[in-house]
């Protein structure tokens, strides 16, 4: 159904032009990516749309060091069909993207729009685990870590690019989600990445998300992992630490206790998969 309060619709041909339009009307203008969320949840104060389709932000580039630069207007399908994206860090991005919504959604939802809306996300836990940074534009360009970005508090800005660092040698990652049906929002999801050198974990990222939140790193679990080997015993310890550390909500779909239990399940499944994907494999 029409978003009836919209009175103006622009398709600027550059990021700077988009940002200039965003400045107009003191919050009345809203950037438009794929539209899949904005059409049904357009804030009532928004009366102007700034469509980024012509701003040159639909691209995927590999950097010389093995990183990736994803233009904010790249659709999930664009990413899922790009070999360098789906194979990055033991395939965790491809694993996750294939589980986001349906094909109908993946064909139009954009990675930039998803980051900006920051809700009901299977994507953000993986971006957090990969230490992704964002290229923002608010009159000048600047780079910001995804975790800091999700903390909020930013003024008007355009998300230009999602920057995925090169894979750390000896690293592996895995994503999993638990939902009532394949198409439903995840009750709990999670992503784990570990970097291993000489059999010892040198860095770890453990992220747990739930259906009404965007996912957060769980530092106490990461501390359990760093310095250890990824053995079944280490995984058991990490699972127990996850259930102690996360504070998930309860609602009509699932109780807090159930989600708390699932958080451990998700961490266990991710870490077991990570162990299989590490060079030499097998926890």
């Amino acid at each position, binding site marked *: *159904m*029409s*978003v*009836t*309060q*919209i*009175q*103006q*619709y622009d*398709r600027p041909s550059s990021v700077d032009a988009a940002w200039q339009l965003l400045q107009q009307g003191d919050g009345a203008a809203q950037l*438009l990516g*794929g*539209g*899949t969320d*904005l*059409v*049904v949840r357009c804030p009532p104060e928004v009366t102007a*749309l700034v*469509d980024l*389709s012509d701003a040159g932000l639909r691209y995927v580039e590999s950097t010389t060091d093995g990183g990736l630069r994803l233009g904010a207007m790249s659709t999930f*399908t664009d990413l899922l069909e790009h070999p360098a994206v789906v194979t990055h860090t033991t395939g965790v991005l491809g694993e996750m993207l294939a589980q986001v*919504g*349906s*094909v*109908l*959604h993946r*064909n*139009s939802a954009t990675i930039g729009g998803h980051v900006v809306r920051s809700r009901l996300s299977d994507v953000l836990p993986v971006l957090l685990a990969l230490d992704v940074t964002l290229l923002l534009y608010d009159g000048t360009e600047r780079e910001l870590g995804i975790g800091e970005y999700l903390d909020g508090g930013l003024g008007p800005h355009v998300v230009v690019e999602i920057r995925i660092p090169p894979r750390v040698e000896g690293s592996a990652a895995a994503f999993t989600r638990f939902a009532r049906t*394949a*198409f439903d929002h995840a009750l709990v999801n999670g992503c784990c990445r570990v970097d291993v050198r000489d059999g010892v974990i040198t860095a770890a990222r453990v992220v747990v998300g739930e259906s009404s939140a965007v996912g957060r790193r769980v530092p106490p679990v990461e501390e359990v992992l760093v310095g250890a080997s990824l053995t079944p015993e280490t995984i058991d310890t990490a699972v127990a630490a996850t259930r102690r550390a996360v504070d998930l909500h309860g609602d009509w779909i699932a109780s807090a206790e159930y989600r708390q239990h699932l958080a451990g399940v998700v961490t266990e499944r991710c870490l077991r998969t990570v162990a299989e994907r590490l060079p030499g494999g097998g926890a």
Partner: protein
Amino acid sequence: MRLSFTLNGGSVETDVAPGATLMELLRGLGAVSVKDGCARGDCGSCAVLLDGRAVTACLLFAGQVEGLRITTAEGLADEVGLHPLQQALLEAGGVQCGFCTPGILMAAADLLEREPEPTEAQVRVGLAGNLCRCTGYVKIVEAVQDAAAMMASATPVAEGEEVGHG
């Protein structure tokens, strides 16, 4: 606002409200195969092909299709006859009330364009965004695979040609 795009092979230039969805625009132009089921991207009955990819027309603003190519179920059949997907759905009993059928056709057309010989699992993934409350999906899945077989045995269509019976 003024908008230009291609609909089922024909050029369209029209005025549209800035906040209108693609679903409203297409239905207003007579493409009533684009069904208004849920208007929030849950049911897939409004699916159309946008530059060859199936999308939910209810979740796009009309302005997003400027300069693009849209195919609806009205654009599948040609003067020769039904599209193999339409024929297969009829023959397999994959149509009951028919409300979801146009959206399923478009999602399946997208799938077969990229995966000409899909497995049952691939069909089910390809149609995961389309709800049918009548058939239970078994006949629909069979029909998509039947259509794939029909298309494989037909004369190849030139690259870039509009989706159609061929």
